[in-house]
């Protein structure tokens, strides 16, 4: 039955991949109206992830569907137990997803601001809620012998879970800021670097706390596990690199931080998949929730064929869209104003004064006025 642990690893890989990729999308979503000070800037920020975010989000769908197929008991208990949190998560993902698409489709300041808010809030809530959920898996929830959740909505908000959620949000912020530093030009580039520097110490503090607590929660030995250590080292490296203005390495470091944090949850969890705080004997494990061997075998064939293929064409798509995006691209009308190009930002693009600078001043952005 080597396929059971194999599928646990596949699911851990899918969640990790999701957070490495969608992590910076969340960060860009939260930061886009701070980094982009006017409509053109915001559009530039959104367009750094424009071609990519949808493909990144599929990692979440596939992670969920793989849990359904490989560990139906896990999927059923987790998704029904965390019901209201899941509803909230779906709402966040929905408003965020349509915000990308609909924001530029009407040229009205209020319309765009509404979708800006939707994008920001959705991008904040999604990693927070998923983080809380993952933290709950590890730290335990009231679960009875029939593998059913017996607690209330508020049981989800235990300290460790909240820390996990906040940590993920902070990593997403830093990850997004380093991504924007890599993908933008001019004043936006400067502002992204500045934001990364401001966020980095908080992210580092959260990750260190998270790594230690994860260790305490899931292990009885004193010696910290390699992944937890890696998370701490990577986030410290990220802080240093951000202050050294090494954009590429800083982004790599935040990606490693994200990966090691998510992976350490799954390593801490195994062989459990959901810990029962009622009685450890009731915990859901890979074995008491797994599908029959035949199903796992059939899906193994599919994942072995398709996952490398997916990685190949997603890598290619990142290569195609490797260029930086500049605010200037969004300030003039294109040569052909064809159907799919949303109306170019008229008055709001022309008036750099609009709502953003106040926000930025509050955050102490100094380099924002170069353009």
């Amino acid at each position, binding site marked *: 039955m080597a396929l059971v642990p194999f599928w646990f690893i596949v699911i851990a890989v899918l969640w990790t991949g999701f957070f490495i990729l969608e992590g910076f999308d969340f960060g860009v979503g939260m930061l886009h109206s701070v980094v982009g000070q006017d409509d053109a800037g915001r559009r530039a920020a959104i367009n750094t992830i424009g071609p990519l975010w*949808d493909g990144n989000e599929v990692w979440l769908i*596939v992670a969920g569907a793989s849990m359904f197929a490989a560990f139906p008991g896990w999927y059923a208990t987790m998704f029904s137990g965390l019901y209201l949190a899941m509803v909230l998560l779906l709402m966040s993902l929905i408003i965020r997803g349509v915000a990308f698409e609909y924001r530029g489709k009407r040229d009205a300041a209020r319309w765009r601001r509404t979708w800006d808010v939707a994008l920001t809030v959705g991008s904040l809530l999604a990693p927070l809620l998923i983080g809380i959920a993952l933290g709950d898996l590890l730290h335990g929830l009231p679960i009875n012998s029939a593998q059913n959740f017996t607690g209330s909505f508020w049981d989800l908000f235990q300290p460790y879970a909240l820390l996990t959620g906040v940590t993920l949000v902070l990593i997403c912020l830093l990850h997004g800021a380093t991504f924007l530093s890599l993908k933008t030009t001019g004043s936006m580039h400067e502002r992204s670097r500045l934001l990364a520097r401001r966020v980095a110490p908080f992210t580092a503090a959260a990750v260190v706390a998270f790594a230690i607590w994860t260790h305490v929660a899931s292990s009885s030995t004193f010696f910290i596990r390699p992944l937890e250590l890696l998370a701490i080292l990577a986030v410290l490296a990220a802080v240093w690199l951000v202050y050294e203005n090494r954009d590429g390495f800083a982004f790599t470091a935040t990606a490693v931080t994200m990966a090691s944090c998510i992976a350490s949850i799954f390593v801490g969890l195994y062989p459990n998949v959901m810990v029962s705080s009622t009685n450890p004997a009731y915990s859901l494990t890979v074995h008491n929730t797994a599908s029959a061997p035949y199903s796992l075998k059939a899906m193994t064939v599919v994942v072995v064929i398709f996952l490398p293929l997916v990685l190949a064409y997603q890598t290619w798509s990142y290569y195609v869209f490797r260029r930086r995006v500049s605010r200037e691209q969004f300030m003039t009308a294109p040569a052909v104003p064809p159907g799919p190009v949303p109306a170019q930002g008229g008055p709001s693009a022309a008036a750099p004064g609009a709502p953003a600078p106040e926000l930025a001043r509050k955050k102490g952005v100094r380099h924002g006025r170069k353009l």
Partner: protein
Amino acid sequence: MALDLARWQFAFTSVNHFLFIPITIGLAFLTALLQTSWHRSGREEYLRLTRFFGTLLVINVAIGVVTGIVQEFEFGMNWGAYSRLVGNIFGAPLAMEGLAAFFLESTFLGLWLFGWDKLPKRVHLLTIWAVAFGSALSAAFIMAANSWMQHPVGYLMVNGKPVLNDIWAVFTNPVFVWGYAKVLLVSLVTGASVMLAISAWQLRHGGVREVFTRSARLALVVLVPAILFTMLVGDELGVIEGQYQPMKIAAAEAQWTTCQPCSFSLFQIGGGNNDQTPTQVLAIPHLLSLLATNHWNGKVVGLSPLQAQYSSQFGPGNYVPNVFIQYWSMRAMAYLGVVVLLISLWGLLLIRRRKLATSRVFLWVAVWGVVLPFLMNTAGWLLTESGRQPWIVQGIMLTKNGISPTVSTTWLWISVLAFVVLYGTLGTVDLLLMLKYSRKELPPPPAEADLETPVPAVQY
């Protein structure tokens, strides 16, 4: 109450999801055809049409994707017991769908949309075909999963639990093969109807005539065979489902007693689960026998004998689906299909007479005709899914046993309200944007000097 709310929520979110999906599948294919025509002929009107309809495609994909995530999560959220019991079979196609189809569709949509000026023309053309293929492929997996609920195959019962033992059987399930063909065809019908309606509106309101006549013709050329085959395939699907789910077919005719040969009533007065003797209006002899069995004198077992048979087989209980919904959704689906067929044939006739762009009556009908496929699709799903009741998996699990035992009525009320408000808002926004962009003027043709420079990419 919890059961009703969970069912209502699933029906609500699914019906909404399937308003957008057929547009996506159909329009992706048609947009790919337009771009291919541009690629092969080099005529700029095809490029303008590609960009024009591409926008509409993208507006719908966005909402199709996000409502799809809801579908994916709802099985675990609301149907926990069901997921636990059949996840090892039902979950497999869903995971495969994500891996094989969703990744393809979403990644290549990004490449198509933003890659106009970054990819070689030929590669760029391939990306829209990858989107079309990915969206059609995703429907295959989800239909395989759904068909398993209608007619479970490829499994063994082990300790009262179905365990997959033949994945191939799941993908060769006759209900799947015919059901999938039908979904692809109605997607083409829906996409082509949308394209036809928009072209017709543009022709009525001074849109560039030569260009929109082309798109109207393309739409009609796809629509006529698509709706014809939808009806033929739908008829065969009815015969197949009749073999495995006789209740569904008997209820669709409100046939309480066994008949041979059986007539088909165009309308009835009264009817429903408590009225077993409705007044049939205009009964056509032999037609039900033909529809349900493909034989002139075929036998259709009535609801009452089936109920007796099921009660002795599965224990006491009510195994009759909602007859009212079955009877009328079947007719709504069939009659609307006929209307769509007539409209499309009329359009074909006008093409032959070269009057398509000038017949204002036809153009008006074609604009409003766009609502018909959506009503038809919704009726079709009601027929299929309501007809499966009271089973969640035919013969294996009852719907009432499938719900999540720990999700309270309060939680359900919260989620139902949240989804209704959100979907209502998004549906309205989507509709308004579709209307706005459908009524936009075509992008102007590129100037001669511009022909060398690449087409600008799309940006958010």
